[in-house]
């Protein structure tokens, strides 16, 4: 107790000074919109730097987990490669099999990217990725997590950065299908919960059930990309279609590493669609 009193005696001038100084600075900082804006910009810059450092540290400590997932992915790909090789061997030097696995038949190319910034609390959220036009990124490419979960698609890009419209954007819309019965739907975000999207225009014959998995069905992405699982479903008033609430598979709040998916045939599909529209 005696030591504590001594300590307080030693530092009380400094404490009083700091309290008075903070009060004076606060009074000055909030006295006009100019000072408020200046202080805000400074604190944002400082906050951004600190946040960036913390993210980097967090990224460093999450490396073991990422390594584990990468290893699992490598194992998965190796298995796939083995099975394809086995298929080729089994069919001898079959020209059909060779064509099937020819590089020219590869439709999708994957570009790894990292999230630079993102929002999840607005009606029109965006994600900025650290890959841009110089890396071969262009609008309309799909974006997924390394676990094959839907994130969104690229809407614009500069030389070094790309802006993604995530599923958590009220302007977002893509096709989907229920994995169990192949019934298609439209996926969109009503702007309510950041954990849920909705599937609309589900056929009355689709018989949706809770827990059913919904995948993306879009020319931007390959099959097997998960949107999420059905939580609730209702029949519309006209009893002509179901709409379902889907729990998003990707954890949008902790996105870090993503894959940008390029459909090498997208230009061809787009041209074809344009021709159909013009006819």
């Amino acid at each position, binding site marked *: 107790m005696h030591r504590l009193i001594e300590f307080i005696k030693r530092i009380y001038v400094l404490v009083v000074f700091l309290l008075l100084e903070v009060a*004076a*600075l606060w009074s*000055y900082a909030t006295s006009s919109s100019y000072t408020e804006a*200046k202080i805000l910009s400074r604190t944002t810059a400082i906050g951004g730097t600190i946040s960036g450092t913390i993210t980097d540290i967090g990224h460093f400590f999450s490396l073991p987990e990422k390594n584990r997932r990468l290893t699992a992915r490598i194992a998965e790909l190796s298995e796939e490669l083995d099975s394809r090789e086995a298929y080729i061997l089994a069919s001898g030097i079959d020209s059909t099999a060779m064509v099937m696995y020819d590089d020219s038949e590869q439709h999708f190319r994957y570009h790894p990217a990292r999230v630079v910034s993102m929002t999840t609390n607005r009606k029109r959220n965006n994600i900025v990725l650290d890959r841009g036009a110089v890396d071969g990124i262009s609008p309309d490419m799909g974006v997924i997590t390394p676990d094959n979960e839907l994130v969104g698609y690229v809407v614009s890009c500069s030389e070094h950065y790309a802006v993604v419209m995530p599923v958590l954007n009220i302007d977002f819309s893509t096709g989907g299908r229920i994995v169990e019965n192949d019934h298609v739907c439209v996926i969109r975000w009503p702007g309510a919960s950041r954990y849920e999207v909705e599937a609309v225009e589900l056929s009355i014959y689709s018989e949706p059930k809770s827990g059913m998995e919904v995948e993306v069905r879009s020319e931007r992405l390959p099959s097997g990309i998960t949107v999420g699982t059905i939580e609730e479903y209702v029949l519309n008033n006209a009893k002509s279609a179901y709409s379902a609430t889907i729990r998003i598979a990707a954890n949008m709040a902790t996105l870090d590493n993503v894959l940008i998916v390029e459909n090498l045939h997208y230009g061809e599909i787009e041209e074809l669609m344009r021709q159909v529209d013009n006819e």
Partner: protein
Amino acid sequence: MFKNTSYFWLALALIVVEIFILDQLSIAMWLRPMIFPLIIILLPMEWRTIWVLMVALVVGIVMDMSLGGAGLYTATLLPLAVVRSSVMYLTTRRGVEPGDQTPLLSRIAMRQMMIFVGAMLLIHHALFFSLEAMSVALLWQLVATIVMSTLLSLVIAWPIVRLFISKIVR
């Protein structure tokens, strides 16, 4: 008692000069002298820091209320109260000793006194103009304002310092 009254009149005179004369001057954007920090600089070095801090608080509030500083004057005057002894030691290598019989300010040579006052004014002006600008976009203009205003403040303040030390402190 006489000395304390003298300090009060000095403070009042400096505040009046600052508000009604120096603050009304518009010589140039980068030439804005301020001599009211002398109130803190010339307080007896023997005073405890907490009392100097309280004086700085009162003077700062008066200046803020008179000139619409909204805390700017207080925020830039308070640090002077805290760093005063350290600046005195750094510029003159002198400090208050327990057995001193005469005030420290009266024992300092005029050249050293000028360096001390100049350093204190420079610190105040640097804090004031930096906080006022809140930007380094026009860095050279800011530096010029700090340096030129400090020099002009010192030129104006020096006769007051000499007079006060010779007539009151000694």
